[in-house]
């Protein structure tokens, strides 16, 4: 196999655990990390927190981020000019406006973290709403492929702050019960805090290693808050990511809003992937906004390493406009390729194809 962007390490914090391994174990056990909470505006809904003590006990944005960057792979050197770091976030440290905790601009937060790491290169910050993390991975793969860098770390981080909870509630996108991705009775999202980092290195993958072998972004060019019903631009992303490969499963975006899940189903169906098992992890760990692309890439990698297709928790009855194969139970089977997709406000789409050597 030729050289590729190999995932050489990862770290994550979410409502399902404070490490990638803990999150994986909880996902396998079918646990739901979301807990009922009363928001600042008096709305009762499930929210995912990285701290058991709720929002007040959650670390500040940069601290949360830093904790996923503490233990890079053994050969990782932040001071190497051929090493860089990409941060994806939808709202960054917006809590700084309210509480005065840390810097508001995302690039300032990133630089604060970069300084503690000793990173020589200036950090790259991407903010394309819920596709931020996946767009970061796609950009990283290209930077590696071009030879500009040898190692790129990609982080995604967002907090379920009062600001974010209030906003999604006002657009009537929040479910007051556990969310049900792709289900006929789905009625909205559950928001959650998370931070995640993947470490990518350009080299020939060893047997069993997972690498990013395809990726694309696109925009619907349709509407800022409604996805294109046909999912044409997302289909274009999937086509450009997969080429002629058929993934063994799809880690879908699956937010559990009516419009998102319909669009996703249309794109998957039109791509000829209707029979491919598809799941969303948002029924267990909520929608982590800009962090979801990186967090779900780690989960996709774990699925591939363990030859496991997860169940889409919350799904009971098909209810998307196009018929797709939503995974109801955990399935064990040999896996070589997997697709991870993300869709966001502003019309953004992103997709990556992962391969096991």
């Amino acid at each position, binding site marked *: 196999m030729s050289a590729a962007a190999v995932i050489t390490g990862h770290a994550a914090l979410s409502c399902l655990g404070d490490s990638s391994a803990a999150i994986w174990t909880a996902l396998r056990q079918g646990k739901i990390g979301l807990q009922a909470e009363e928001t*600042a*505006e008096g709305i009762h809904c499930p929210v995912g927190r990285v701290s058991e003590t709720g929002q007040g006990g959650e670390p500040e944005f940069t601290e949360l981020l830093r904790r996923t960057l503490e233990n890079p792979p053994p050969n990782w050197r932040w001071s190497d000019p051929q090493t860089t770091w990409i941060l994806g976030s*939808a*709202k*960054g440290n*917006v809590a700084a*406006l*309210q509480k005065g905790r840390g810097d*508001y*601009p*995302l*690039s300032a937060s990133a630089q604060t973290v970069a300084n503690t790491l000793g990173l020589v290169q*200036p950090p*790259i*910050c*991407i*903010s*394309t*709403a819920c596709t931020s993390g996946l*767009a970061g991975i796609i*950009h990283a793969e*290209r*930077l590696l*492929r*071009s030879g*500009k860098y040898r190692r790129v770390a990609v982080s995604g981080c967002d907090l379920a702050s*009062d*600001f974010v909870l*209030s*906003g*999604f509630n*006002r*657009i*009537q996108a929040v479910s007051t019960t556990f969310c049900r991705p792709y289900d006929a009775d789905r009625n909205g999202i559950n928001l959650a805090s998370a931070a995640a980092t993947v470490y990518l290195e350009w080299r020939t993958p060893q047997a069993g290693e997972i690498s990013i072998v395809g990726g*694309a*972004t*696109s*925009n*619907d*060019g*349709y*509407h*800022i*808050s409604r996805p294109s019903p046909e999912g044409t*631009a997302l289909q*274009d992303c999937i086509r*450009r990511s997969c080429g002629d490969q058929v993934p063994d499963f799809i880690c879908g975006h699956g937010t559990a809003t009516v419009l998102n899940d319909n669009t996703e189903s249309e794109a998957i169906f039109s791509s000829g992937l209707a029979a491919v098992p598809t799941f969303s992890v948002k029924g267990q760990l909520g929608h982590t906004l800009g962090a979801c692309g990186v967090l779900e890439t780690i989960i996709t990698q774990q699925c591939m390493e363990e030859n496991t297709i997860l169940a889409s928790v919350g799904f009971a009855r098909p209810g998307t406009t196009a018929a797709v194969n939503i995974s109801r139970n955990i399935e064990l089977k040999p896996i070589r390729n997997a697709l991870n997709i993300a869709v*966001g*406000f*502003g*019309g*953004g*789409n992103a997709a990556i194809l992962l391969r096991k050597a």
Partner: protein
Amino acid sequence: MKQVKLTTEAVFWNGAPLRRRNPSQALRDFHLGLLHEFYVGPEYRFSVVDDVGLACLAATAVCLHFQRRWHGILPEQRAAVFVTYSGSLVTDLVYQKSMGAGGRSSPRVFVQTLPNMVAGQVAACYAVRGEHFVLIQDGPRSSAIAETVEMCLKYGPAKVCLVAWVEQTETELAVELLLCYADAKDQAAGLLGSASMGRSYRMQ
């Protein structure tokens, strides 16, 4: 060069003033006037935009008005790289203020607090359906911008990339736009006033 710069006083085409704002004219009226004069396209839907979004739509209208080649390129081959520092700070403050007890705001205000909304609005109004990135960087001369444009043109299907520097604070609003064609012969020399971006791209 194919560069547009929009400030609160005027719009500049390749460095020369193209239209000046009448001192008595509201900023939104100035931007709407530019749209009415320069927009060419099949769909005219500019009603749901905040001030920075409207400014970007107006600047894009001016930029594309002089670009016949743009209109012959498929939407899937048009990429966009938007860059900002303050992001949606002004709209964030408006929304933050409405969050207090009894506060109200239109749902659209929250949607516009996402920093990528202006790029999404431009994509919807000007049919930009290809590669799409929004960066938060300290300034328009960041090497990250050059790299992102280069990667979009090199590894995606894009034939052209609309590059924008967008900055809005409570007292200022500025938009700089530039088109970068994958064909090196048409590559603009002074990408957002930065020679480094042009150099970076020509290395392909």
